[in-house]
């Protein structure tokens, strides 16, 4: 047979595979993928810079709009960073409420992913099914926070709304209902022989590669890495409740699906415990006052549905930060696609690229343009620049 021609299949920037604009160049020989080129930058909005022009009270709203799917994770990490810098302790009530909202978001995010994964496989029934159940999660969120997404619940020092005692019993009942639905969906998806066939052994990310690429969250846990900020560096109410970390060894797309679906069930467990404890807690403060802006540095970490979110803040005592830095989990996870898609077919590439649950709008903190909107530097160039600068600075001091 003649040697197959090398072609480039573009995925994106606008592609039904992703609801976000992203550009992957798949290098293929026939149907086989031999290389992947990732181009970022379509979603860059300059959050870090915007944050520097806002007061600490406003920043949670700004970072909330980094990503609509994990719209609690960023504020969560953000307020922790600010509290860390200012040295504030939050009242226990606020800790529970935060945990509840965070976990609700995890369920809705994982269901969203499961549905989209089904959609990418042409299995629209799964999509509709998962999203139907996701609606009931959003309903609970709306009940607690007043919003379907973008909850605007968090502020430095606490939360903005309380979950009152009267709300808890109906919430618990809804949660039981949700639990049943989730169990059913999980069973149906994990026992589907066709899905096994389609997903098992596809896009394997071995443990070694997972460590090499420092993947996080469910992507890492599906490759046998036991990493979860909620366990490793407990915050809010995470070490006051009991739950398990789901870890799989296979590293393929099926394992990722499994980890996510089972995590949903763990999340309902956490929420239930939190609600019960909240009920026993006396009514009281839900926020601690922040008298002045922090003077110094602080970091916040939170286990977003996709992995660890990291926020860093540096203040000078005024109400505005002097530096704000964000690192989202997808920036680690997306890179791992480079190895996961190799050798697979184009058909698999679609689901593999989706399997890390990429969130580009979280990721894109770096882009450089000249005035005509043309790319000046890409990721690697910038990395090099920064290394050079570090070296220069190291030499200077």
């Amino acid at each position, binding site marked *: 047979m003649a040697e197959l021609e090398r072609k480039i299949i573009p995925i994106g920037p606008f592609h039904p595979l992703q*609801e976000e*604009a992203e550009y992957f160049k798949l290098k293929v020989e026939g149907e086989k993928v031999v290389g992947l080129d990732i181009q970022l930058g379509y979603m860059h*909005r300059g959050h870090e810079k915007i944050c520097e022009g806002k007061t600490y009270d406003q920043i949670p709203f700004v970072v909330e709009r980094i990503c609509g799917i994990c719209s609690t994770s960023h504020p969560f990490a953000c307020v922790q960073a600010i509290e860390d810098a200012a040295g504030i302790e939050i009242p226990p009530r606020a800790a529970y409420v935060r945990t509840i909202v965070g976990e609700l978001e995890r369920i809705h995010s994982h269901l969203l992913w499961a549905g989209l994964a089904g959609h990418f496989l042409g299995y629209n029934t799964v999509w509709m099914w998962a999203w139907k159940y996701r609606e009931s999660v959003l309903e609970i969120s709306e009940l607690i926070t007043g919003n379907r*997404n973008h909850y605007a619940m968090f502020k430095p020092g606490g939360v903005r709304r309380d979950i009152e005692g009267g709300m808890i019993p109906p919430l618990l009942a809804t949660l039981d209902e949700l639990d049943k639905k989730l169990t059913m969906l999980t069973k149906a998806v994990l026992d589907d022989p066709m899905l096994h066939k389609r997903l098992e052994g596809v896009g394997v990310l071995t443990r070694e590669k997972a460590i090499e690429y420092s993947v996080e969250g469910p992507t890492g846990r599906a490759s046998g890495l036991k990493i979860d900020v909620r366990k490793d560096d407990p915050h809010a109410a995470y070490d006051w409740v009991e739950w398990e970390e789901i870890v799989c060894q296979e590293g393929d797309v099926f394992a990722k699906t499994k980890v996510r679906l089972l995590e949903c069930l763990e999340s309902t467990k956490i929420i239930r415990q939190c609600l019960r404890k909240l009920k026993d807690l006396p009514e009281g403060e839900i926020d601690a006052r922040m008298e002045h802006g922090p003077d110094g540095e602080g970091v916040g970490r939170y286990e977003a549905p996709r992995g660890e979110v990291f926020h860093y803040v540096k203040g000078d005592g005024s109400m505005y930060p002097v530096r704000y830095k964000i690192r989202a989990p997808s920036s680690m996870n997306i890179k791992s696609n480079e190895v996961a898609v190799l050798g697979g077919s184009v058909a698999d590439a679609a689901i593999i690229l989706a399997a890390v649950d990429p*969130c580009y709008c979280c990721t894109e903190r770096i882009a450089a343009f000249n005035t005509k909107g043309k790319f000046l530097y890409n990721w690697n160039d910038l990395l090099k620049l920064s290394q050079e600068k570090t070296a220069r600075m190291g030499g200077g001091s």
Partner: protein
Amino acid sequence: MLKGLKKAALARSLWIYHVAASPCNNCDIEILDLLTPRFDVERFGLLLAPSPRHADLLLVTGMVNKKVLDRVLRVYAQIPKPCVVAAVGSCAISGDLFVDSYNFAGPLDKHIPVDVYIGGCPPKPEAMILGVVRAIEKLKKLKDL
């Protein structure tokens, strides 16, 4: 007569193409939500089109940044006319809180003609349905189709 038929058919069968021009995703997710059981806009003949060449209704979300602007214009050029453009979410309408961003290329209606504005951050799916209804009304009023 023919024109009437064309118009009636167009109003009942708007295919959506959705462009994410650096949004926060939430608007996009809510658009997809429209297709799912609770809202099910297929009842009104709305479908998600795989390619801009098949689309009649362009939904643009997000603050249009400098890099994506070019792409948005290209997609708009690829859509067979007549078509309707909707700006979904505060970002696309005005820039939301990203007006201060160095990467903001200006609100959407500066670049392409926008027919309906659907406000909210994110707009609720109900609001989007209302927006689509408004778009259809607007279509029906168009004289030369």
